[in-house]
């Protein structure tokens, strides 16, 4: 027995010996056990994740293919899907676009007879219809030129009514155009 051990209290020597050996075992064994457990867990996780990912890839591939087919069949475009854009931003953009048409018509020499302003109409299923009705009159050519301007290509119409006025071939019209944009009432979750 070492001198150091002999200086220990007689009653606690056995406990100290056990504590020393257990401490040594823990110090050396715990890192190995923890690392081995870590590796074992990671191996299981990687194996499970690989098969799960393969299954997900297959299923998602099938769903994506089906969705692409459905998209192609429905003829839906990004313009249709813009319905789900942020409703506040959509309303602001829509109103600005309609006002831009009105201003362009005025600048082209047409007379704005009525400006309905932005109107919101609730639709079913969480949709909202934004509409902006303009009534104007004046020469045909500038009117068609403004409406054909690519700058206004983002707009859609629900009412488009052109009436010739005056003598036949005079080239004057009265027009009612209602721009419409459908929007969701609440921002989409994603």
């Amino acid at each position, binding site marked *: 027995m070492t001198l150091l*051990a002999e200086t220990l209290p007689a009653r606690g020597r*056995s406990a100290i010996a056990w504590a020393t050996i257990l401490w040594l075992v823990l110090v050396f064994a715990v890192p190995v056990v923890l690392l081995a457990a870590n590796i074992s867990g990671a191996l299981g996780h990687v194996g499970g994740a690989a098969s799960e990912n393969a299954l997900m890839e297959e299923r998602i591939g099938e769903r994506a293919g089906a969705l692409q087919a*459905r998209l192609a069949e*429905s003829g839906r475009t990004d*313009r249709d899907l813009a319905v789900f854009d942020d409703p506040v931003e959509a309303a602001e953009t829509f109103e600005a676009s309609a006002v831009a048409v009105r201003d362009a018509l005025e600048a082209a020499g047409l007379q704005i007879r009525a400006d309905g302003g932005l109107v919101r109409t609730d639709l079913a*299923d969480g949709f909202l219809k934004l509409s902006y009705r303009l009534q104007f009159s004046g020469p045909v050519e500038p009117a068609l030129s403004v409406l054909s301007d690519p700058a206004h*290509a983002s707009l859609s119409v629900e009412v488009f009514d052109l009436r010739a006025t005056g003598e036949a071939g005079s080239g004057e019209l009265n027009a009612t155009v209602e721009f419409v944009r459908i929007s969701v009432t609440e921002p*989409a979750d994603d």
Partner: protein
Amino acid sequence: MQQSGVLASWAAEAGAFIAWAAAKVCASLPSAVTQAGWRLHAVLLEAGPDRTYTPSARLETSWLGARRRRPLTGQEKTSRAIAVLPRDAQYRRTLSLSRTAARRGRRALELRRDEFSPIPADQSAYAFRAAGSDGDRVGVQIALVRRSDLDRARDAAAASAADWRIAGECDERGDVDFILARSGTSLLRRPVIGWLAVYVALLILLISLAGRFEREVAQADTQRGGWLEQAREIRSLSDRLDRLDTLAEAGVDPVPLPVVMTGLSGLADSLPEDASLERIRLSGGEALIVQTGRLTDGRLERDQTHWPLGGEE
């Protein structure tokens, strides 16, 4: 026992303490456990009447470090030898140290060498062991030998094995005590250091493997996250298409302005030359209704045509 620096001294003390603890623990374990795995540990060399050291026994050790002494078999192949000095070549003395002094071990004994050594320090060597305690005093038994006797034993041991020790005692159970000298194995070449190196190498291997697998887990999780994101996008798009279908069924389906204007541009060329346009309006999102007028025999005849937005009707 020779000192090879503070580190060696500290390692020796720590090793002795751990050996004591292991012996204490092993003593309380079943003998079937402590005595499993006997194997040759060293060959014992003992001096005969002519002071010549010859192999006298084999010392075996179990997996848990228990020792036993066995007769030679003639098959001993080991690089370790323990030479045991004759009892009559040793001067034994028991000192009583305070607990405080005992905790200092050999350093405390060095200060009191004159008390137990009748031989000058440069001509002697000593080893010691605990010899019980009484109250605040700790007994220390010292085995002192002449250096000439130690050198003789050392020569004999070194001639028979590369790894050798000179002990003052080896009882019938195989317990070796009073280690007076040992081969000059450096600290780095001791078996425990070899085991530590193996252990550290194992740890490094495990750490690198764990790191590698953790990266693979992260990669798999990232990939899975990507798939889940795609699945969410597909579901979201599918839901949107469902809602758009519902919207279309409700009859809300505005027509892009460029589609209307493109329809109009083709319309002018296809009208009869004598017809004049009176009204054009959108109908149901799929066609323009075109009203024209024509003077025939002084009468105005009106006509109405559906002009599909996809092309000429």
